[in-house]
């Protein structure tokens, strides 16, 4: 049996303090196949593959590579076994060139006089040749900080190929890409399989699996649910197995009833620290009862628009008007008071003070108002009552209730806390940026429902998301941003997913203008 598999994992168990990340998992991967690992966030996919790549060692169980029992104690050893991995967060040194990143750890040497030095020149040539061979065009001398995300991903793939990896692990490789870039990547992955490589694809996106994978293992809460043949299984079945219950893909959405204009953004330009415009002359407006969604590839200026409206960054040019008041130069506190709720993209680095208790975090936007504060003195009783109420109403789960330090809570519950806090502000304008990032399907459905409830209460909602499905499912109006410019604004029902994807790549630009 074992000969058939290039990788075989038997009875793998891995515990982390407080949780069992992998519970008695056994699976085998055949040479030359694309094997997908499907599961929700926290299902244990990445942990399992990290053990194959030597980043952790299993507490129990055995790993066989090419039929031989191996103790993979380090990424180095995994590399020796011709295993390579593209991590979800790229592991690149930003001030090094592409070539330097690729050779890091296995630097070729040459002699300069009597001293051995790292041989950059021959590396540049080798990398250029390699990138041509696999259709992964890159400039070996470019620095990482100057290239975009999808090129960085190519560097990661080249890193594996340079190390002559035969077993390639991709951890959520499409999370940061546009639909077109995804297509390109999947094509490359297929190409690699043609070249005889074995591919392991970690993902929670069913379409991708359906498109490229041969077989698929489904994980749920650290346990292996099933291993399926992709061609003969429906997407619905995979989804149900992944979540462990029936999943409803369709969002129930009543027709929108637009009210008066709440937010008006005119000719907004935002510059980054290097004085480079990242938002260019953007204009749009959001009405009461409307979900205005901005679609776009990560890093095209959409977060800066949200930040500019909320006051986190300065508008270099243009005006922002909220309910008829010009707020362009208003400070953050005044904007909150005037009526803006903001659920930021980065919940841990912006939305929460992780070392504060839950009740303090829930009052983070209101602590200075009555009844929380009177003449500069805090009323702890008010904090505690308010916290208690929100925890109940929004079903926020934590170890010690309102006194839990937020750092120790799960990502989903942290997000619930932010959503609860911001919705309770009952602001006329609510900005949601990536509200469901990193959450499991149950939590996603829940937040989508809440967004729709707020819309139907007559709030104006500015939704920014990288998930096209989320935008297509929720938006009443869609604006597509590319390279800081709003290329297209149209009612959601007049656009198809494919069209939005085209705009996200900046493709239809000429046609429109």
């Amino acid at each position: 049996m074992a000969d058939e598999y290039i990788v075989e994992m038997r009875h793998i168990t891995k515990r982390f303090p407080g949780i069992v990340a992998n519970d008695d998992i056994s699976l085998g991967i055949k040479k030359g196949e694309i094997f997908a690992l499907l599961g929700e966030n926290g299902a244990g996919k990445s942990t399992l593959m990290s053990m194959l790549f030597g980043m952790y060692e299993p507490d129990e169980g055995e790993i066989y590579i090419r039929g031989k029992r191996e103790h993979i104690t380090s990424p180095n050893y995994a590399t020796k076994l011709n295993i390579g991995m593209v991590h979800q967060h790229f592991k690149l040194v930003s001030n090094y060139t592409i070539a330097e990143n690729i050779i890091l750890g296995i630097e070729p040497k040459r002699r300069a006089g009597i001293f051995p030095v790292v041989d950059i020149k021959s590396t540049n040539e080798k990398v250029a040749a390699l990138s041509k061979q696999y259709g992964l065009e890159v400039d070996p001398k470019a620095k990482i900080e100057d290239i975009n995300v999808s090129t960085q991903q190519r560097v990661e793939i080249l890193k594996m190929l340079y190390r002559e990896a035969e077993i390639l692990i991709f951890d959520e490789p499409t999370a940061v890409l546009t639909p077109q870039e995804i297509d390109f990547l999947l094509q490359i992955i297929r190409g690699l399989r043609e070249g005889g490589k074995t591919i392991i694809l970690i993902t929670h996106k069913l379409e991708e699996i359906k498109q490229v994978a041969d077989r698929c293992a489904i994980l749920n809460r650290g346990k292996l649910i099933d291993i399926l043949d992709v061609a003969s299984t429906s997407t619905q079945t995979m989804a149900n197995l992944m979540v462990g219950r029936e999943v409803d893909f369709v969002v129930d959405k009543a027709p929108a009833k637009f009210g008066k204009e709440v937010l008006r953004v005119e000719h907004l330009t935002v510059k980054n620290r290097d004085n480079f415009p990242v938002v260019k002359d953007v204009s749009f407006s959001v009405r009461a009862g409307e979900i205005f969604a901005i679609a776009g590839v990560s890093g095209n200026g959409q977060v800066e628009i949200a930040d500019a409206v909320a006051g986190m960054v300065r508008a270099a040019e243009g005006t922002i008007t909220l309910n008829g008041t010009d707020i362009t130069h208003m400070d953050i506190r005044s904007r909150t008071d005037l009526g803006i709720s903001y659920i930021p993209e980065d919940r841990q680095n912006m939305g929460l003070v992780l070392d504060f208790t839950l009740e303090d975090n829930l009052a983070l936007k209101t602590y200075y108002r009555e009844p929380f504060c009177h003449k500069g003195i805090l009323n702890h009783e008010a904090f505690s009552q308010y916290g208690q109420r929100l925890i109940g109403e929004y079903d926020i789960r934590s170890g010690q209730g309102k006194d839990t330090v937020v750092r120790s809570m799960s990502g989903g519950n942290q997000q619930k806390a932010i959503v609860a806090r911001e919705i309770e502000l009952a602001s006329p304008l609510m900005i949601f940026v990536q509200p469901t990032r990193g959450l499991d399907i149950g939590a996603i459905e829940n937040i989508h429902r809440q967004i729709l409830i707020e819309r139907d209460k007559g709030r104006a909602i500015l939704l920014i998301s990288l998930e096209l499905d989320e935008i297509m499912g929720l938006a009443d109006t869609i604006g597509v941003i590319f390279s800081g410019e709003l290329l297209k604004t149209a009612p959601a029902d007049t656009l198809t997913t494919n069209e939005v994807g085209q705009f996200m790549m900046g493709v239809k630009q000429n046609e429109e203008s």
Partner: protein
Amino acid sequence: MRRANPITRGVLFLMGDERRQRITIPVFAILLSLIASSVVLLILGKNPMEAFVSLLRGSGILPKEAYAAKKSMLTDFLSLLNAWTPMLFASLSVAVAMRAGLFNIGVSGQMLCAGFIATVTVGYAENLPAVVAKPLVVIIGLVAGALVASIIGFLKQKWNINEVVSAIMLNYIIRYVVSFFVKATINNPSTRQSWPVTASSRLSLMDTELGGLKMDIPLGIILAVAAVILVQFLFTKMKLGFELRAIGGNPVAARYAGVNVGRNTVLVMAISGALAGLAGVTYYLGYFGSIQPDVLISTGFDAIAVCILGNSNPIGIIFSSLLISVIDKGSTYLQSSIGVRQEIGALITGLILLFSACGAFISYLVNRGRQHEEDARKLLSGAGGKEAKA
């Protein structure tokens, strides 16, 4: 997965949960350093217990066997308080900044600057009555310290200059500038220090006869205790304290919540500097009475570690700064009573600070151990349950 041995389990139990560790970890660090110092003392051929007792005796916590005329335990204790006052202020100064996520490594410089300005403005004003001179010294110290430290805050909020770097630069600028003025203007050639300040401006009543005893009465200690209470109130009850803690926890989130981070950064450095200024005047116009050129006293640096030992908590700092002062003050007596060089005091202090810097690691080990224990217990009881069913 096995459970730990009983000794480890006992230690884990004693260290307690994260709340209790705030006390148990520093205590543990102190114990470790006492053990380490004992080893040093044993190598020197001295009895550690005897040495520790002399430290306490020298600082007026325990009675000595004999006292000179007009001296008693009380005089020793008061002179301990005299030395403790600047240390307490300095540690509070560090703590205030630390709670807002800032390192005030410039306390020594701020102390010197405040002390110098108060010395030249009030310290030599012969005719000023004490009731005017003393409050004036306090106010000048407070303002001078606040101004110097707010430069650091300003540089940080305006140009994002790391406060550690700018504070070090300012420390040395102040040190050299003050040295220049002290040497050029108020130098006492015989002591190579500045002339001592007038008794009316001095914040400690030196050599005061009271009840047949001659003692140094530090007036600053009253202010210091008041400062402890105020700082504690600031961080637990006040809106400003909430905002400062938020900045300390996550400056981006604080800004997002509408806190004016820039203004508060300057403000908290000003408060920290004001406390450092008070430390300065209670040192240079209290405990010490003059200024030594070319020297940046170590109090401001020690205070950082004292603050860590006290968990940046005003109440904790009372104990940690007192401990360091006891060692410092008692070490002189240590030399005369059992003949260990008084430099050992600084060494013990250094060891305590060293172990307290490991606090986070100890806490990490303890928490990991506790988690491991809990998992093992669950697993074992789970397995036991299964077996029972089978």
